[in-house]
């Protein structure tokens, strides 16, 4: 592997001593098959132990290491360093408060995540002895892609609505709620749709599609939101024809 030097310009912020974020440049040797995360780890281990960033699995599944790289939200463990020039700017994800350096505040997201009731809602709980549900491969396909979200939050960083409307539930949470609505084992769509139709729900989405473009796992949150909108409009139209089902 050939080794070259690159300059990594990292946004630094320590609320203990900084009023505002600043940047710090590190010129380091990089291998051409590295991901951006490996450059940050090199800095942490060999140059500056005070740099703070989150990471763990380094295989694009734990969702910890989302950051803005040259202004674009990226999962840094999947983002090849070879796709950038001699200087790479690494900043925390946009649209989140910064805790320190590249670490952002997740509590708001966790609240939104829980708000969509991301669990199976059923009128009657089955006992283990009753066995598994039958679910056809087609029924599985109705929601499977929406279950692939790793909660990396790149979509919140990219979403123009999130930046203007902080209460917007946002792409990942809405896609997750829709994932359960689409699951043949679930009976909670009425409950979730009420949340979806509320302020900050699906109708806040302007269909900019940025979320789907930046998603590292092909989840297509904007597609999920459009499907959910359609379901809700149909639901709403039906409510004039037949009495609405009571939610369980």
């Amino acid at each position, binding site marked *: 592997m050939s080794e070259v030097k690159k300059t990594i310009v990292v946004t630094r912020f*320590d609320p203990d001593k900084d009023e505002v974020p600043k940047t710090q440049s590190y010129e380091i040797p990089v291998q051409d098959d590295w991901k951006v995360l490996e450059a940050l780890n090199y800095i942490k281990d060999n140059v500056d132990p005070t740099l703070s960033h989150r990471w763990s699995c380094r295989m694009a599944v734990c*969702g910890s290491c989302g950051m803005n790289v040259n202004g674009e939200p990226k999962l840094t463990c999947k983002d090849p360093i070879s796709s950038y020039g001699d200087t790479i700017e690494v900043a925390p994800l946009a649209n989140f408060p910064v805790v320190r350096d590249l670490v952002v505040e997740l509590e708001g997201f966790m609240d939104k995540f829980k708000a969509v009731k991301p669990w199976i809602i059923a009128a009657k709980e089955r006992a283990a002895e009753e066995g598994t549900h039958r679910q056809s491969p087609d029924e599985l396909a109705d929601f499977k892609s929406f279950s692939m979200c790793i909660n990396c939050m790149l979509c919140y960083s990219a979403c123009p609505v999130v930046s203007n409307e902080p209460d917007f539930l946002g792409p990942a949470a809405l896609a997750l709620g829709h994932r359960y609505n689409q699951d043949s084992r679930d009976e909670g769509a009425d409950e979730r749709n009420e949340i979806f139709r509320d302020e900050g729900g699906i109708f806040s989405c302007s269909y900019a599609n940025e979320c789907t473009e930046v998603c590292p796992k092909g989840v297509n949150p904007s597609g999920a939101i459009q499907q959910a909108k359609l379901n809700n409009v149909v639901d709403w139209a039906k409510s004039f024809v037949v009495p609405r089902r009571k939610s369980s």
Partner: protein
Amino acid sequence: MVDVTRHDVVIVGGGAAGLRAAIAVSEARPGISIALVSKVYPMRSHTVSAEGGAAAVARSDDTLEMHAYDTVKGSDFLGDQDVIQYFVEEAPKELTRLEHWGCPWSRNDDGTVATRAFGGMTTKRTWFATDKVGFHMLHTLFQTSMKYGDIERYDEHFVTKLLVDGGACRGVAALDMRTGQVKAVLGKAVILATGGGGKVWPFTTNGNIKTGDGMALAYREGIALKDMEFVQYHPTGLPGTGILITEATRGEGGYLLNSEGERFLTTRDYGVGTKAELGPRDMISRAIMQEIAAGRGIKIPGKIGEYAHLDLRHLGEEKIMARIPFVRELSRTYANVDPVHEPIPIRPVLHYMMGGVDTDIDGATEIDGLYAAGETACVSLNGANRLGSNSLTECLVFGARAGAHAVQYIAGSSGGEEGPLLRQAEDEAGRVEALRGQQGGGEKITKLRESMNDIMERGTGVYREQASMAKANTEIAELKGRYEQLSLDDPSKVFNTEIIAALELRNMIDVAESVALAALHRKESRGAHACPDFPTRNDGEYLHHSLVYYGPTGPRFDKKDVTLGVWEPEERKY
């Protein structure tokens, strides 16, 4: 004064075992107060990286007895047979519960849950959700846990000490990473579910957070770590990074090839018989190392070591995309290889620790009120070698059992005074503060970690020479001394990942110490512990569990009987 919060049950770790335990506690006694303390947000837990599947009897051509026997034989007769019997009985119920909670298990055309073949298993009994099974199980458990209002999460809190008084564990001291403050999180029972410690070794499938924290916490309180010499090398990790390529690749029909393009598991005798690529992991990893030693390894420019090839080309793009799409994504992203068109270079990689905190079948430890489950624990399901796809199920079965037993335990526990616990937490806050202030000169985390990795790779690899194990013991003892001279650079209290790394390093060195000592004591070859100096199994002297106890002047070794049952030890040949 440290901040104090009070709960009934404190669970440390938010992966599959911890979340399953939390749900079990809440279901056993609604309204009970649960603290779920994790150094990461639960969905980051390393369960997320498990790929291939979870084992439980599901098909009409399978039986509980067959699953039990496969597990006993896979363990090289060091698994406890009462534990294994309970495990196979509960396994289908637990995976069914996950199904009810929404886990997107892959399906057969008739809508039943699909199963695939896995190493050492007689028939197809591994449930799967393509090749992201850990990810889907973890997210299902985490999302489901949110509907239980009794669970209060302490995300990004690093537990530095168990609070033990009067022979009972009644809480933890936890460093809140956000503020840098140590808190006392008190409870009447504590369940450890922090996973294994793969980062003790340099080349591992494990994520950065796998630092043996729960093992070290229990060890330092005087609880034995059991069977620590048995560490699993998974046969197929990617060059350089060690990223896991699932055994499901072979379950779906993949081949292992040497540099001559030969399917060596079918042409040479490595003890796996007609199972070939579906032999157990210990044997396949040794076969690959022997092929490399015989000069039939594959060299990759710029990468350390030699490799074998994992060939999936004959499966075809459609099957690869339907069954193991993540393998394709990983191979392309991290090895620049498309398995549809090229074989994947792989080599054995440290993956899993069979050993852990010594528990009984209920997950209970030698300290009252302290439980452990999942990879952190050694309930003696896996013995000397774990079968692939048993560990995800283990997290559920024994996470649930530990949770249920913790609830029973606290019903009969009168608690005790808080004073001594709070004084321990105060001391711990002082110790953390002192560590943060340990600056200027001295030893550095990165150097010590590299030394530890190097010692453990040389001393406790796939093959273990007596001389190299003895040396590892001496060198780890020296490393402990060097750790005392550690110097940090980051004085900040806010999200200080350097001090976390320092605390993790201490945990890893303690775990390494126990592994090195247990390995040196076992002068035989059994399961994953392969000693060229003692190439055969020796039931006369070594059909026992290893115990390592912490001591201020060095670790102490002891042993414990294996619980046999219907199956007497026999030669392990497939």
